[in-house]
């Protein structure tokens, strides 16, 4: 992430570009002539590059922001403009703005400046690495920035993990990265094959069976500062998804390295909570596996005994996400008796068909929790949209041989709804929400808060959800 400094003024003699967010119709008088000539008015999305004797000034149209997300987008556009002019360091001028807006600007810039360049050995241009956030009162801004920074770091951890290729981020490596979070005060326990077998995680073990890298169930705990049932995040972490015997077509299969974005988002949320010392207890249960093909791969037609004891008939080995989540949900529910469970998963292509890349599909059993998730998503610019679990969706999962079928067969299937109906069976009576982020986890094109590629969707949403609804010890 960008190194961010809060300063009252620019560094002396610095030649870094200075970005100024400009509200609609509020161009500073000294730039008025240039702005008029370039038809810059401060509208959302407008950017004006003004090289001059005092250095380079970037005017960033901010429109009329009513929420933090508006300032974040302006910060993101500032970073994009700085990247475009090859700057290594950017001064972002938030003087005159409230501290929350200043923090949002910096967070937006950090999110936009992220790049997946770990595996580039020859980069042509030097990346943007540092940000001076110019504010009137650094001390007053600092607490706002600390919160925003925690969320941004969580989001970027999620992106880092999601961007990693399947040969690098194996299940073991993923677990090791999670274990490293213990330095922030997160307790991490990783269950390997033996413990999974002893516990009876038949679904997770089956999905991970054919791969050379064994499945793992990673359990992360953040204790918080008051005693209460925790909120549980459950993440799908398929480090690479070939589809298994129901093999995917070659075209586009490389994107399946991102099939662990749900688990990554949950891990990012845990990091954010820890960094900002959230008072609320939270756990994350992340099911890590590689869905490979092999001589001992699980097959369509197999019947699996899940951790809950319920049996599942496999229909399509490429619908593996719901299987590993079934075990993870049951584990989280029985082990932690959580106040609420939220699972995140790049689960179905149907969710992409339904809502595209701009919104995640939201399912669940608890109207209050669903409303809270939607509000948290709006607050951080990670929007969701509710979809139904109908009686027919559940009926379609009736199996001839087991307690339920993993998915239905045929044309034009509402597979996101089917998957949600399947997962609901393992949520028990706990308030539960399921986010199908198959579309939202990846940006199809560059946007103000990130380049094309993994979005980290969910980390900031979960962090905001906790902050908005679960950090009052007297809630109920």
């Amino acid at each position, binding site marked *: 992430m960008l190194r961010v400094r809060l300063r009252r003024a620019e560094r002396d003699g610095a030649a870094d570009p200075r970005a100024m967010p400009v509200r609609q119709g509020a161009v500073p008088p000294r730039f008025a002539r240039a702005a008029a000539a370039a038809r810059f008015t401060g509208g959302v999305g407008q950017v004006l590059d003004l090289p001059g004797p005092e250095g380079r000034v970037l005017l960033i149209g901010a429109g009329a922001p009513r929420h933090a997300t508006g300032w974040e987008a302006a910060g993101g556009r500032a970073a994009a403009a700085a990247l475009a002019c090859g700057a290594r360091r950017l001064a972002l001028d938030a003087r005159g703005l409230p501290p929350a807006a200043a923090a949002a600007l910096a967070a937006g810039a950090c999110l936009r400046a992220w790049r997946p360049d770990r595996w580039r050995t020859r980069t042509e241009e030097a990346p943007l690495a540092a940000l001076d956030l110019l504010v009137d009162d650094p001390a007053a801004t600092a607490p706002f920035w600390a919160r925003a920074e925690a969320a941004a770091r969580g989001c970027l951890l999620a992106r880092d993990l999601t961007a990693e290729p399947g040969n690098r981020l194996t299940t073991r490596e993923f677990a090791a990265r999670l274990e490293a979070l213990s330095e922030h005060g997160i307790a991490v326990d990783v269950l390997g094959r033996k413990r999974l077998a002893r516990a009876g995680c038949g679904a997770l073990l089956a999905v991970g069976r054919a791969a050379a890298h064994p499945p793992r169930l990673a359990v992360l705990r953040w204790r918080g500062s008051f005693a209460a049932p925790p909120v549980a995040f459950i993440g799908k972490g398929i480090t690479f998804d070939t589809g298994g015997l129901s093999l995917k077509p070659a075209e586009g299969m490389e994107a399946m390295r991102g099939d662990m974005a749900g688990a990554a988002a949950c891990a990012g949320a845990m990091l954010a909570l820890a960094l900002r010392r959230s008072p609320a207890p939270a756990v994350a249960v992340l099911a890590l596996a590689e869905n490979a093909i092999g001589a001992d791969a699980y097959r369509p037609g197999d019947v699996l005994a899940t951790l809950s004891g319920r049996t599942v008939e496999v229909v399509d080995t490429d619908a593996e996400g719901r299987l590993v989540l079934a075990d993870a949900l049951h584990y989280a529910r029985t082990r932690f008796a959580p106040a609420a469970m939220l699972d995140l998963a790049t689960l179905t292509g149907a969710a992409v068909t339904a809502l595209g890349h701009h919104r995640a599909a939201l399912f669940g059993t608890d109207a209050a929790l669903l409303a809270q998730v939607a509000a948290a998503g709006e607050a951080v610019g990670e929007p969701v949209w509710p979809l139904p679990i109908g009686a027919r969706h559940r009926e379609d999962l009736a199996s001839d041989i087991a307690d339920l079928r993993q998915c239905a067969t045929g044309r034009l299937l*509402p597979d996101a*709804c089917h998957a949600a109906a399947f997962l609901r069976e393992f949520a028990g009576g706990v308030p539960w929400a399921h986010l199908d982020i198959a579309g939202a986890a990846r940006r*199809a094109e560059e946007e103000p808060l990130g380049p094309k590629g993994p979005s980290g969707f969910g980390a900031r949403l979960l962090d905001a959800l906790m902050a908005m609804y679960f950090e009052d010890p007297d809630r109920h």
Partner: protein
Amino acid sequence: MPDIAFVKPALPRSGALVLPLPEAAEGAAWNDNLRRAADEATGGAVSRALEAAAFKGRKGQSCTIWAPGAGLSRVVAIGLGKPGEVTPEGAEAAGGAIAPLIVQEREALVAAEGLPPALAAGLALGLTLRAWRFDRYRTQEKEEDKPKLERVAIATADTAAAKAAWMPMRAAADGVALARELVAEPPNVLGPEEMAERCRGLEKHGVEVEVLGPKEMRKLGFGALLGVAQGSAREPRVVVMRWNGASGNGKGRRGRPVAFIGKGVTFDTGGISIKPAQGMEEMKYDMAGAGAVVGLMAALAGRRARVDAVGMVGLVENMPSGTAQRPGDVVKTYSGQTVEVINTDAEGRLVLADLLWYCQERFEPRFMVDLATLTGAIIISLGHEHAGLFSNDDELAQRIEAAGRAVGEACWRMPLGEAYDKQLKSDIADMKNVGGRPGGSITAAQFLQRFVNTKKGPMPWAHLDIAGTAWAQKDLPLAPKGPTGFGVRLLDRLVAEHYEG
């Protein structure tokens, strides 16, 4: 469909007797005189049989007792659930459950004296909807397999109140039946011209019917609709139906009407972007939106609804041929906006684009609701239990959702937004006709929304994507497998609740 009559309770001498019965509850009063009478007349056979079958009156439970005596050929018991908790939907569902159990009888009497008159009528509605059948093209059916039900008498204490409740329900049932029939008709029989002729049949109910042919459409500039039609040997039609009931006599018009627009692709091959062979026969249903609009107009006129309503349907056949439109073609819509046709199988929105603009320009309606079997994506999004509802107006959307819930035609609100609209950007024209797979139903709705804005600002508009709900893959409580007539009752209810008087 059988004739429905409401009669005073009296045991029939022959035929079927239907006993809708609630679960036994302590102290709950339930008028079951006819059941007692039947029991007496059969020497207790009815009660004994129900006991032997463990019939408890639970919702969805049924039991048939064959020839228990007293001249009755069968007694059918139907569970209503808890007494005092029978809802209108519950009564309709019970009626629907009765239908298949008595279709082989010529006459049946339903002992509904325990139900309030409105629920007794609701039961008749459910029965009527479920008993609908389309057998015009069965010539070899054995006599014993044919349904025989001609008359159903509903026994109720207050026949006048039940009849009054039944009148509008019957109009709705007739509208549904008309919509289903139009959808069920094979595509060689029902082309655009033939369907326009059937629309003319509404004139006898007092509906004004105006038919536009290709010549009129060319003059008006319906470039998008004509582009879709140009591959077929059959000419397109646009039918404008007007029911002017606000003044109470079906004659004069008052103020701004409400407007309903239907997609009527009488057969959709996909055009040059041809569909796979498997399942293509289902594409005769691609005029179900138009069918629902026609059915709705019949329902409104049939019950003399006090509303001014416009129904418009765009009727075309989408065929591949030497004259068919090609992917890459640019067409000019009636609004003046141009469209690059990327996929000729996304033709419904092209038809609707011209109709929406024409409708708002000509009628300045209070709102527009369009119905269309528009996208496969909506089936992937929601399945078959909900239609996709898109709207630029929260009040209208909530009213539609509520009306749908009330009549068992559920809708699910889907989002609109600029991010989706961007997917329609074209390199050569004002827009493309498809926005790619992601959010496919939403981009279709975004396309339509571009044809909704008037000079005075956005008109309240809702779009119902009924691709998943217009056809039932298996029997439903109120419809046999096949066309459902989805939308007729919903919109009839919407009008009745909010736009009359």
